[in-house]
Each structure stands twice: as structure tokens, then as C-alpha cells.
């Protein structure tokens, strides 16, 4: 018999009030990013069951306290940080592989499963979700979905929206309720595709509890090559050729500014101050070899300054670096002099957008490093500056994105500056509708209010 039951049976004692779930739930200290960006929160609560997590959300709602759902907290810097004290709830202990059908190429996992473990489990059967993440990440599956990052192979394989076939989430309100969408079959149109709304939601549509993926076989062969050109135009011309030809590059990136230097730890030859293009093929050996041979002919004509054919075992490490380009170093304190943004254009407009970036004042562009995905039109920009110089670039990026009709999001700014800028630098007429829909998941506006869209959606 528990204490409460004892109290209830003793009419002489006042009924005891059960302690708040947040005080009994296991917890863990915040990491340095959580500490910096979630200033008003306590420790990270780590419920061990969906029921406990629901109780925490219910408690938060009862006290009108914002909730920050998260996985491992590896991307705490994403979006606008909470203004008020919030309950920081991690799904990291919900980390089970629930259903894995290798023969059917599907898997269902709890959201707290570390991404690295997901990769390991799938690799045993030579399978993958072909959306890249760094093998050095501490992130979880749920965080991956909530962040919705496109990987370097997005131009060919698409993003998580193309592989997530089911999900379970927790809806807020006075009576938090878990809901499911989709299932474990690769083709399914029963009901609304609610899961799509969770991808890239940054936790604002509530905690993600489970995710199902359809899988692909790992390719037999992968190649990743780089060539350096004297002039930027030559690099872009080469990339345009690869994009327009009958090849099927799975990676096609143009390095701009100091990008090569940023990656020199992994690729020492790239320290040379030239314009590099990276491209990759995958598939069976015949098709990869054939494509590489075709590109060799093109390279013969274009005479690059330098050429690097990565050994097979060197590819994963470089892919890690390419993934990490859009993130601050997780092993160091949150940098106070770094900005990271991502802009999106049409593939044929990417070169023009990049050129526009490098036409910003010398004082700002001097530190620019860009990775432009010539297949998707996404440009990831890193820049470094001290003090106000760092954020001086933001309104210029905003103006540039508006004039170029591109999207622009801030992926990272130091904690002291982050709240001054919205996640998206470009206003969008769909925001009020999106906010109306989001409020279905979060009627009382307690899940990371304002993190992704301005509060109220306008």
C-alpha cells in the first residue's frame, strides 16, 4: 500500500497532495547549449514512459508553464529561445527500437533513440534512412525529425518527409492525449498526413514520441570526389554541367569563401584558396564507375587546379563534416562570434544568390564560408565576427533574401543575440494559417512559444 492510500484510509489525517510529477521525475543536468539558450529552465526532466511524459505536460498546462520538448538537447540553439521559465522535457529515455522489419524495409522507434544507434541497427542489415546526419552527433530520432535538417544527399534522396511513414506525438491542452498518424506500411493514405506537420516543427507541435521510417538498402558503392577551380564561375559551370547531364550525383556542393578552410581538418588539400566542388555518386559498382568515368572526361576538358578522389573509407568522415557545417561545434561552449544561416533558391539561381552574398560589404563577407547545394538550391552560410559586427550581417541577409525571393533561416546566433531575430528572416503569408493549425496541437500555446514562428503567427 502506498502512502496516499494510507492517508486516504486514515480519517484523522488531512489528505496528502501528490507531489508534482516534475519533482519525482528523473532528471539530468543541462548541457552547455541548454544552459546557454534555456536560461529559465531547471534540469532536464527525463520521463521513462509516455504516461510520465503526459503527466509532466499536464502539470505544465495546469500551471501555464511553457514546455520545451527535446531529445538530447543537441540543437538547443535552433529557433527563438523561450522567454519564460519552462519545463524542459527530454525523450532520451524513450529509446527503444519498437518494430524492425528488415525484410520489409521498415522500422519503428521511440523518439529518444540516439541517431547513432539507429544507424548501427540499420547498418547490420545494410539499410539506412538516406537522410544524413553526422556519425558524431548525440542527437535523437525525435530531435532529428523536429529539426528537419536536409542532409547533403537531399537533392537526390529527398528529406525526412519522404521516409517518415508514421509517427506518434503528444497533443497539449487540458487533457494531453497521444495520437498516431500513418503506420508501418510504405504506402498509406488513410487520414490526414499529420506527421508532415511535425517535421521541422522544432517542438512547437508538441513532443514526438515514436517515428516509423521506410528504409533503403545501403548502396554497394559510394564515391566522393572534389575538384578545385581557379575561378568561382568555373566551379559553378562545372556543377551546372553535372546537374544538367545524365549523371545522378547524390551530392553536389560548391564551396565558397572560407568553406575549404573550415573543412581542412578533414581534407588538408582543401586549404588551398580555390573554388572547390564536391560531388558524389552511389549505387552498384558498375553505375558508380561509369559515372566517374564520364566525369573524368569532363574534368579533362576543364582542367581543374586540383583533384581529390576520396578513398572509400574516407567518405563517411567527410560526409560527417558536411553535415556539421550547419552546426556549431557541440564539444565547445556556444560560440559568441559565430553565425550560421541557410538560404534557399531555385537551383539555377543558386550561383546568383551566392554571388549576391559575396557582394555584401567586405567587412562582413571577409569571414564568409558557404556550402551551396547545386541540386537543391540551399546555401549554408557561416560567418564569424566579434561583438555587434556579428549581427550587423543579419539585416543585410534579410534584405538580400527578400530581394532575391529566397528563404532564409537563422540556424545559429550566440545566446545573447538569438532572441533578437526570428527563426525565419523572410515573412510568409502562410504563417497565420500555420499558427492556426499548430494551435490544434497546442491549444494553450505552451510548446516552445515563438520558437519557430512569431507568437500569434503574424
Amino acid at each position: 500500500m502506498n502512502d496516499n492510500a494510507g492517508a486516504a484510509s486514515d480519517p484523522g489525517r488531512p489528505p496528502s497532495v501528490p507531489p508534482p510529477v516534475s519533482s519525482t521525475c528523473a532528471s539530468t543536468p543541462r548541457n552547455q547549449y541548454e544552459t546557454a539558450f534555456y536560461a529559465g529552465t531547471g534540469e532536464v526532466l527525463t520521463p521513462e514512459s509516455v504516461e510520465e511524459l503526459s503527466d509532466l505536460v499536464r502539470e505544465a498546462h495546469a500551471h501555464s508553464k511553457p514546455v520545451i520538448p527535446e531529445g538530447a538537447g543537441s540543437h538547443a540553439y535552433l529557433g527563438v529561445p523561450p522567454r519564460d521559465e519552462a519545463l524542459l522535457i527530454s525523450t532520451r529515455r524513450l529509446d527503444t527500437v519498437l518494430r524492425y522489419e528488415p525484410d520489409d524495409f521498415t522500422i519503428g522507434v521511440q523518439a529518444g533513440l540516439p541517431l547513432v544507434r539507429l544507424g548501427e541497427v540499420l547498418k547490420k542489415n545494410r539499410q539506412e534512412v538516406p537522410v544524413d546526419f553526422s556519425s558524431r552527433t548525440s542527437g535523437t530520432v525525435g530531435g532529428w525529425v523536429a529539426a528537419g535538417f536536409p542532409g547533403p544527399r537531399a537533392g537526390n534522396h529527398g528529406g525526412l518527409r519522404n521516409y517518415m511513414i508514421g509517427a506518434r506525438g503528444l497533443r497539449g491542452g487540458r487533457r494531453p492525449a497521444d495520437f498516431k498518424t500513418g503506420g508501418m506500411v510504405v504506402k498509406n493514405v488513410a487520414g490526414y498526413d499529420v506527421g508532415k506537420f511535425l517535421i521541422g516543427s522544432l517542438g512547437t507541435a508538441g513532443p514526438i514520441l515514436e517515428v516509423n521510417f521506410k528504409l533503403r538498402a545501403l548502396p554497394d558503392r559510394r564515391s566522393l570526389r572534389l575538384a578545385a577551380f581557379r575561378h568561382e564561375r568555373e566551379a559553378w559551370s562545372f556543377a551546372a554541367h553535372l546537374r544538367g547531364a545524365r549523371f545522378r550525383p547524390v551530392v553536389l556542393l560548391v564551396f565558397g569563401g572560407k568553406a575549404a578552410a573550415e573543412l581542412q581538418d578533414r581534407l588538408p588539400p582543401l586549404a588551398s584558396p580555390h573554388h572547390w566542388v564536391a560531388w558524389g555518386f552511389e549505387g552498384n559498382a558498375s553505375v558508380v564507375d561509369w559515372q566517374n568515368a564520364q566525369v573524368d572526361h569532363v574534368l579533362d576538358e576543364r582542367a581543374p587546379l586540383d583533384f581529390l578522389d576520396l578513398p572509400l573509407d574516407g567518405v563517411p568522415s567527410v560526409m560527417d563534416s558536411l553535415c556539421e557545417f550547419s552546426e556549431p561545434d557541440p564539444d565547445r561552449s556556444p560560440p559568441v562570434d559565430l553565425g550560421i544561416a541557410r538560404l534557399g533558391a531555385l537551383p539555377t539561381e543558386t550561383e546568383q544568390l551566392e554571388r549576391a552574398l559575396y557582394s555584401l560589404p567586405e567587412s562582413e563577407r571577409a569571414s564568409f564560408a558557404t556550402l551551396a547545394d547545386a541540386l537543391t538550391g540551399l546555401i549554408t552560410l557561416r560567418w564569424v565576427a566579434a561583438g555587434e559586427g556579428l549581427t550587423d550581417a543579419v539585416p543585410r541577409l534579410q534584405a538580400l533574401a527578400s530581394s532575391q525571393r529566397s528563404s532564409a533561416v537563422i540556424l545559429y546566433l550566440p545566446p545573447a543575440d538569438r532572441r533578437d531575430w526570428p527563426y525565419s528572416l523572410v515573412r510568409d503569408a502562410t504563417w497565420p494559417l500555420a499558427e492556426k493549425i499548430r494551435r490544434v496541437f497546442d491549444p494553450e500555446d505552451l510548446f516552445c512559444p515563438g520558437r519557430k514562428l512569431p507568437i500569434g503567427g503574424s
Partner: protein
Amino acid sequence: MLFPHRKRADSPNSVDVTGQPSPYLELMESIPPERLVTDPGELCVYECDGFPLHKERPGAVILCESREDVIQIVRWCHEKGIPFVPRGAGTGLSGGATPVPGGVVIDLNRMRRIVRVDVENGYAIVEPGVVNLRITDAAAPAGFHYAPDPSSQKACTIGGNVAENAGGPHCLKYGMTTDHILGLEVVLPDGEVIRLGGPRAEGAGYDLVGLFVGTEGTFGVVTEVTVKLLPSPQSVRTYLAIFDSMSLACRTVSAITREGVEPAALEVLDQLTIRAVEASVYAAGYPQNAAAVLLVEIDGLEAGLDEPEATIRRICEENRVVEFRVAKDEADRQRLWRGRKGAFGALGRINTDLYVLDGVVPRTRLEETLEVFYAIADRHRLTLSNVFHAGDGNLHPNISYDGRDADERSRVLLAGREILTACVRAGGSISGEHGIGVEKMEFMPLLFTADDLALQKDLRAAVDGRGLANPGKIFPDCRSCVEVGGEHRAVPL
């Protein structure tokens, strides 16, 4: 004033069934007669789509020619509180375009402009009434195509494809409609126009395009669609594997999946279907004594195709394939596909009516599920054929019946329910590509709990507070909930 134009003469439909003045009198004042259908005889055409088991008579059909037409009609409906149903070619198989009795049907077939084709950036912008295949026709000269290819692609429209999140044989490799829609222009149920997504790389907002695709017209009327165009494959190889047992055909499919081979399409036809096809104008040279044929297609760069071909051939041989034919040229390939794509039409030869079901199971459970289907048909004394997208576990059990026979009709409905229940029990779903419509509303609780459905209904209410956009679809009404409530069970995600 709607549609500036000439006036219309009196219509036989100027009063409604209760003898009250029809609300459409106002429309008659303002819409050109050739674009407003109110004649009861003409309205019959719109009573159902490709799901004839449920028919309703609309009050009026408006043949829209532009976004402005749609906006004005939707605003008028919103103002008057009149429900509306968007409709494309009416080829849907779940009753998604079944009219609301007395409501408006917004016909989009005349909105068939291909606004832009930009192959360099891999997209096209089209109006909703553009026929699926016309998009590929427009992009093909530049070496591109639009990948989703429902069997009805010569007739079905892209607006309907978006509404139902349509599939097709090549979705096995290339994904469903939702994977190929980059942007939408939608007239919301209150008449507001909104643009979602677009051809440029990711925006910063939520994936509203992904959420809107497959909402079956309940989130408004799509007036423009931005679709993804893909480079056409350099090479395509098509095979016909002939089996003397359906089980062996299914095992072959499972083995191909297990090996990680990624065919562009993997289709199975059973014997009854083969015979119907071969007796029809779609005859493809399938052997009529075969228990099943497996149509396999691989595509990509020529240099990469020998290996998957060898693997597929080996797996077929391991599963005692009777014959493994290779399409020797494009004409041969087209002929093999003609049989598959015309199969549903050919099945019309068997009886007066055809109920095309649509369920999904994990690909490893095809064999056992089909056995259950055949047993169900036997028990209900019904004629069952199967033609399906085996590679993604998407089954199409087809029941041929005489709709004039009330008893047979009721047995068809019972069997349909049992078949879909069997799909769910096998870990699958009640629809792979046809949508829920009116056909499967009552089966939704087989898959979803009350909380799951409440969320979806609330999403609908957030977009369509008055419930005027295609009401009576997807969600079981309260009565249905009660009826099927006893069957609620925890279905694993």
C-alpha cells in the same frame, strides 16, 4: 455579381425538393448557362465518381474556368452556408467526389492550363484540371517526366491526384503524389486564397503542402499545383515473370524486396485478371493458363541495370518461375503495360459492376493476406480478382458483381469490410492510394483511436470552421463511431 455574362432562362430546377426557391436561382442569374448545371438529368452524371456504390444528387454543378471562378463560388457557398465538393475527372475510387445532396459540385476540368514547365529547375506549374499524363507529355521533349502514374493517368486530373494523394505502379521507386508536390495554391473554405510552398528550396515554415495533400478536398479547392519533374531514365527494362502459383509470385516479390533491389515497378495480376485482360482490347500476351504474372520494371542509367536484372532473374528462378520474358523493345514494353493499366477496364467484362478495393499490408505478408482474401470471397460466394502493386504491399482485390442483385450487393459490402479488416490485422492500412472518401469512413476506427480521429477532425475544423468543404468524407460520423465502437482496439503504429 458572379461571372459577368448573359442571363439564363428559367430552369426546371428553380425550386428545390421542398418546393422552396432554389438557392441556385441566384447563380442562374449570374452564371453562363453552359457553365452551370442544374438540370436533374444532367446532374445524374455527377452523382458519383468511380465508386458507384454510393450516389447523391448535387443541387448544382459549376464548371469553373479560372481561379477567380473558384474563389467566387467558394465565397458564395461560404456566405450561404452551402456545402461544396471539388471534382476533377471523377475517376476516384473511394467516393471522394461524391456530392453532398443538394450541394455544389465545383468542376475543375476546364482549368487545364499548363502554366509553366521549367525542366532546368525540375518543376511545372499546372492548373488542377490538367490530366496527369499531359504533364509528362509536356515535359518529355526535354527528357523529363512527372512520376506518379495512377492506372487512370490518361483521364485523372492532377487536382484529384493531390486530393487523394494518388499512387500508381511507379510509386514503388519514386514515391506517392505527396513526394512530387512542391507547392499549392488553395482557395480555403472561406474563400481566402493561399499559396503553400513552391519550387524554391525549403521555406522556414511548416510543411503545409505535405499536410494538405491527401485531405480529399476537405481543406478547400486547389487551383494551382507545382509539381516536381524528374529526368526520364536513360534506360528502362521490363520483364514478365510467369508463375503457376500466386504464392510463388508473392514469395518472389518478398524476396526481391528483401534483397534491397529497387525496381521502378513490381506488379502482380492473378489468373482471373489475366483472362479478362486477354479477352479485352488491352490484351498484352499474358499466358491465360498462368496462375499469376509478375510485371517487373527497372530503370536508371544503362550501366547500372545488369546487376539488378541478374538478381531479379535469379530470384524468379529460385521461386520456380515458369517463364521469364524480357520486353524486347519499347513497343513490347508498352504492350505489357497496356494489359496492366487496362486491367480494371477489362474486369468490367466479368459482370455488370466492379468494386475495386484498396488495402495495404507489409510486403512480407502478401501471400498469407491473399489467401485470406480468396477465402472471404469464397465464403460470400463472390467473384474475386487481384491486380496489385505488389512491391509496396498495395493490394487491389476486385469484386465483380451484379449491382441489381440486392443480396449480392450486400455480400459485396460485407466482404469488402472483411478484406480491409484483414489488411489492418496484417499490420497494414485501409487505403494505399485511393483515399477514404465515403467508402471507408466507417473503417477509420479500425486504424485510429478516438483521440487520433479527434486531432484530425480538429485540424479540419481549424481550416474549415463551418464544415462546408466536402463534408461527409473521411471521418465516421457519430452514429458510425457508435456502430463500430466495439471494434476499437490498440493498433500498433
